[in-house]
């Protein structure tokens, strides 16, 4: 059993009267895609912010490659090797792909931007991830949603992270573009990175994740190996009851189907 690259235990966070996280746990191994699922307000975003250092936890332990660490600001997380790609794309539409990839981190040669070095590095990076875009010199505004998300993910890899957190990477994407991004997530896994995938979409989770960690009301409500769990089990863990709106709806449609069959 390998040491998890990142493990959290007993993490709690309170915002005023709201207990956003209580005793939450999460473990990510190298080369593993862990889906973090849960309903709205379950504490997914809070946990992400704890890991990213945006909102540090009130209590709890974070271990990085086995040793305890403190993450109190975004820089701490980046320095450890945790990269975060946020849901709302953080790209500048008017800049080209190279400029966006290196924004705030440009390479300099004689006090001048090393455009050629950056362009080569960008091409190599995108090629290694099999991200297909018309040219690295087109403005990001001219790319499709999936291509833009791919560029945003590629950008997070420039700092050579070991863990990448993706916050709803496929929200607002079409079917083909979602597939592009899911392919990219698999390539991150193949590179040996630990991936934390925050998603509402259980189809995506089933397609790409190795494990699904369910949060409910700020607590851990289940940890499933994707190959072994059914979607019903995960939905049950998310909603907290076997008798829930989703299962009732399913039962109702099943009834409807059998009724129509009787009619015939």
């Amino acid at each position, binding site marked *: 059993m390998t040491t998890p690259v990142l493990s959290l235990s007993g993490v709690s966070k309170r915002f005023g009267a709201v207990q956003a996280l209580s005793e939450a746990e999460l473990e990510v191994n190298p080369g593993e895609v862990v889906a973090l699922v849960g309903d709205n307000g379950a504490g997914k975003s809070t946990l992400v912010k704890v890991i990213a250092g945006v909102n540090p936890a009130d209590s709890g332990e974070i271990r990085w490659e086995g040793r305890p660490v403190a993450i109190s600001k975004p820089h701490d997380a980046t320095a450890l090797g945790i990269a975060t790609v946020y849901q709302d794309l953080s790209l500048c*539409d008017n800049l080209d792909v190279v400029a966006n990839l290196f*924004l705030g981190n440009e390479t300099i040669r004689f006090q001048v931007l090393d*455009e050629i070095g950056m362009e*080569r590095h960008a091409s190599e990076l995108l090629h290694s991830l099999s991200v297909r875009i*018309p040219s690295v010199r087109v403005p990001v*505004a001219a790319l499709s949603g999936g291509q833009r998300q791919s560029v945003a993910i590629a950008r997070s890899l420039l700092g050579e992270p070991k863990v990448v957190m993706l916050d709803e990477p496929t929200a607002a994407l079409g079917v083909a573009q979602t597939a592009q991004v899911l392919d990219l997530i698999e390539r991150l896994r193949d590179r040996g990175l630990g991936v934390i995938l925050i998603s509402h979409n259980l189809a995506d989770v089933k397609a790409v994740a190795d494990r699904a960690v369910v949060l409910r009301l700020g607590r851990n409500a289940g940890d499933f190996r994707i190959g072994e769990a059914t979607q019903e089990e995960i939905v049950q863990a998310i909603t907290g009851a076997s008798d829930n709106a989703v299962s009732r709806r399913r039962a109702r449609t099943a009834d409807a189907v059998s009724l129509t069959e009787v009619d015939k």
Partner: protein
Amino acid sequence: MSTVKSDVNGPVLASTAGAAGGVAEPPGPGGGLAAARRRLRSGELGSWPVVIGLVVIWVVFQSLNQNFLTPQNLYNLAVQIAATGAISVGVVMVLLLGEIDLSVASVSGLAGAILAALTVRNGVPDALGIVTVVLICALIGTMHGLIVTKVGVPSFVVGLAGLIGWQGLQLYVLGAQGTINFSYEGLVAQLTHTNLTPAGGWALGAAAVGCYVAATLYDQRRRRAAGLPLRSTRRLGLRAAVLAAGVAGTVLVLNAWRGVPLALLILVVLVVGFDLVLRRTRYGRSIFAIGGNVEASRRAGLNVDLVRISVFALASSMAAIGGILAASRGYSVGQQSGGSDVLLLAIAAAVIGGTSLFGGRGSTYAALLGGLVIGSITSGILLLQLGSPARFMITAGVLLAAVILDSLSRRGRRAHGRE
């Protein structure tokens, strides 16, 4: 920095730039045409509309009055656009951030007044006076920037307050007398009344073209070494040829009258210098990024406030340089300096030249090109003796056309970006 001399070549360099300071041409023959079509469809027009507009204006005025395209008139045009052009360079930088600075004209008038008070009334040496005035105006701009970033007042309002306030200070500095005259022989007056010798003009022009060609070849060699797609040799050659022809034509025409004026040289150095800063440095890249998406820039770790404050400081400094050039041209500073239509023309020049009002798109060549367009209209109307009514209405029409084009191309980009 190399001294680069150019006039008509502006569009050539500017079109290399693109909005982001990168070169977006796919390699191979025929790639150029496809790229041009793609840029047209997606609203990346670059400087072409304004170049075409300028040619149309010149042809129309020349056909109405044979004296329009004479060396004398073009020389006067070159000297005339220097002051407003310098102010416009600062306006372009502020517009790139997606902000606006309405105080530039008042600051330019104030700069002239302080310079006159220092040098003429108090005997401060001209050179020291010029440096002092530019620094004072940089402080004024810093103050604008601090109010915009740290207090959160919209730049429009800060500029409006500056527009009124600094004009008031200008009147106070000038005092009851109202007008201060510079000596005809002083450094200040010489700024716009000095010309290069014919040989000097040619040498500088050749040096500029030489620098451009050398930089292009060096870039191409590094691209080859790095295994990146090369830019089409034919295109690069054509571009260098157009640049050389433009520079040669300008020098030839200006030498036919009094030679290349120092004022034009100052403007061109400012335009080219700041264009290089914008496209080739991290600082310039951060200005484009903030104009494109503030939140993304902040997340990328850019010091957004510092960049904004510095750009406001730059805009006021450029306004000071413009004010000094204007004072130099008229040998005097008066209560009307920096007043009337200076502000509107400086902003109009930037926008007509192709700088987007929405931030993140444009280049300092807009100041030169837009200034040429406005200067040409003014000069043509003057030759036709039509007076201010026609001048204002025609300038307004051109400005409106430029803004409409900007809005349409923005819409085109949107439609294209979300396809």
